[in-house]
């Protein structure tokens, strides 16, 4: 199979996937290539693969998530792993157990892979220091969400045939977004021109130092863009604290047809989900023919399979 041939040519060189900051272009391309093949295999409904047969995968979610957890679970099961879902937000943490104690406890069960989501930045890296298995960051605070950025890159590459040289506008709550940070890293590494678009209250400090052009006017920010990536605005930030109202936010920063017309005619419309229709994106734009939002979800499973496969290749006794 093509994927395994490519893998033999170049092996993914890291034990964990914690952040996109340290990923090189070849690292990213290895994962995208594997995922690309897996996506085709998934569509063709090829028989379940057994590359993770006998391996155990723990989904450790300190923060509730439906889609990311389901995506990892699906990915693990498609590769033949035994998948255990742990929603820690409702268990031992309530009893006062520290993150490190949880990590040590789980480590004693000798899993092969742990997928972790946590509400605090850096928590996944901290946990990775205390376990012997491979750790995948499924989102840590406002820090990183690597598989989201990788699936976004794969979606763009499949639709546009390339990433280098494209203009990608990331729009919305940049300050609190791990998706934005990971995407800025990956897209820059692959040679895209990255823009970030947000009202100043949703831009982080020193946002001009992140390797992206900064815009506070969305019509300028998405002018001639090849890709428009919308971010979710968390409900608690909508009313008065960071923006005055959802109505005003939608007026100036929501993606509607009028603003969309400023982008290139073939611009892709993306959103990591879940969407607030009528807040950051008009309902009809979300369902537009150029919207690849559903494809993103599909590529999510493929990318997570690719990551699990790549990391499993580095496990002991492999």
């Amino acid at each position, binding site marked *: 199979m093509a994927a395994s041939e490519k893998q033999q040519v170049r092996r993914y060189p890291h034990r964990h996937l914690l952040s996109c*900051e340290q990923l090189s272009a070849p690292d990213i391309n290895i994962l995208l290539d594997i995922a690309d093949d897996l996506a085709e295999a998934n569509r063709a409904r090829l028989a379940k693969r057994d590359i993770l047969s006998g391996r155990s995968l723990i989904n450790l979610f300190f923060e509730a998530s439906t889609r990311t957890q389901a995506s990892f679970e699906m990915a693990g099961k498609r590769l033949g792993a035994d998948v255990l879902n742990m929603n820690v937000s409702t268990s031992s943490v309530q009893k006062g157990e520290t993150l*490190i104690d949880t990590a040590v406890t789980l480590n004693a069960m000798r899993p092969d892979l742990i997928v972790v989501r946590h509400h*605090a930045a*850096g928590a996944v*890296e901290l946990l990775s220091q205390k376990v012997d298995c491979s750790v995948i960051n499924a989102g840590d605070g406002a*820090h990183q969400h690597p598989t989201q950025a990788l699936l976004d890159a794969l979606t763009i590459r499949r639709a546009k045939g390339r990433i280098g040289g494209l203009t990608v506008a990331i729009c919305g709550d940049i300050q609190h977004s791990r998706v934005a940070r990971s995407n800025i890293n990956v897209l820059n590494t692959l040679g895209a021109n990255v823009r970030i678009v947000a009202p100043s209250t949703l831009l982080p*400090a*020193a946002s001009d*130092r*992140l390797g992206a052009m900064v815009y506070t006017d969305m019509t300028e920010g998405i002018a001639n863009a090849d890709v428009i990536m919308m971010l979710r605005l968390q409900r608690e930030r909508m009313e008065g604290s960071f923006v005055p109202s959802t109505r005003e936010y939608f007026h100036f920063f929501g993606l509607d047809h009028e603003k969309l017309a400023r982008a290139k005619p073939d611009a892709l419309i993306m959103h990591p989900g879940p969407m607030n229709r009528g807040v950051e994106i008009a309902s009809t734009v979300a369902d537009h023919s150029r919207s690849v939002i559903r494809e993103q979800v599909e590529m999510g499973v493929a990318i997570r399979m690719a990551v699990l496969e790549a990391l499993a290749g580095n496990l002991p006794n492999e």
Partner: protein
Amino acid sequence: MATASSKGKRTNGGKSVNRSTMVNENEGTTVFINARLIDPASNRDEAGGLAFRDGIITDIGPHLRRNAPDASHVIDCRGCVLAPGLIDAQVFVGEPGAEHRETLKTASMAAAAGGVTTIVVMPDTNPVIDQVALVDFIQRRARDNAVVHIATMAAVTKGLLGEEMTEIGLLKRAGAIAFSNGKTTVANTRVMRNVLNYAKDFGALIVHHAEDPYLSGNASMNSGEVATRLGLPSVSKHAETIVLERDVRLVEMTGARYHAATITCGESLEVIRKAKEKQLAVTAGVSINHLALNENDIGSYRTFFKIRPPLRADEDRRAMVEGIASGDIDIIVSSHDPQDADVKRRPFAEASDGAVGLETLLSAGLRLVHAGDLTLMQLLKALTCNPAKLLRLDSGRLVKGAPADLVLFDPDEPWVVNKDLLKSRSKNTPFDEARMQGRVLRTVVAGETVYEYAGVART
């Protein structure tokens, strides 16, 4: 380091010991010869010796360099620096309430090992030091257990809540050396004005941690590129400057004595500078952490570098060093803040603030001297006579009649910090495994040796 007296003795293995067990030097006159005497108060930096008796300096000068007539004990300093013992105006302890982190005794032993002979303990304890009986408690515990001088900083508002004033007059009479709201800021401007206005009548010094709590919110580090990359909630340095500007205006209104506990950026330094130009009774301190470290040291979420106020950018650090050199910043504090592993080994945003610092204070400061950023005199001034003046202590200088609170240190001795060897009960040092140049050899409090470095055998 050698003890040249025939009756010379060594303290046990470099460990500091309780004062009551150290009687020898109390009898007769002890003379430190062959020292490099540095006394910032008199601008003295010369070869010489120093004599003391009954805990009081009796003689000092070049004439004691080699000779020590009538001395009961003679200690050869081998050319090392003999300076006034350091005075640290900001030390957090865990007594009462969190003795597992630090007691007055362990803090004093850490101080002794760092050449610090007077520490001011902060009111952020449980219960908060906001009543006369609690000031008494601290002083009694300190008298019975501590090996260095301990002065008490009392709370300026009840429970440090920033709402109701404490009994400033009675607390001062009970021995409180100054008043502070600890790690929290008095956000209510009316309360702060009343505090300053009232404190003025008693000549009480108000020490304030200036940081707008509404701006800082749940911030865990300095706002900027590093925080943004790490995805951590952050606070701008302006949260400090804004409060400082308000406070200076209130000092102007009331005429109180005001000390900014720890400033951290050039903008704040500018506020202090202008207040001093106006002849206001405004002074400022800086923590050794903000002189020696910057936000980049946090690396990937190293919680031992999580302190409050947070570490700033390097340009801010350099501004602080220049502030010490120019004298606009008056004192350096360790901001010693013991935290146990349980509250530090957490995700960064959830970990406690604070770093221990008593034992590395001088060595970390000497880094700046070796780097050529400060002179030894400038460094020691901010650690001895300046805090003495601020706190109205009679120590902090090498003159006849002053207390024999002394530190003897080798400014060049290289060593590596090992957190497990710290005397502090908590090991949360940001300098673990750091290479230092210069270390304390002996600490003397009221004429008694409370710490002596055993050291590696030297020929």
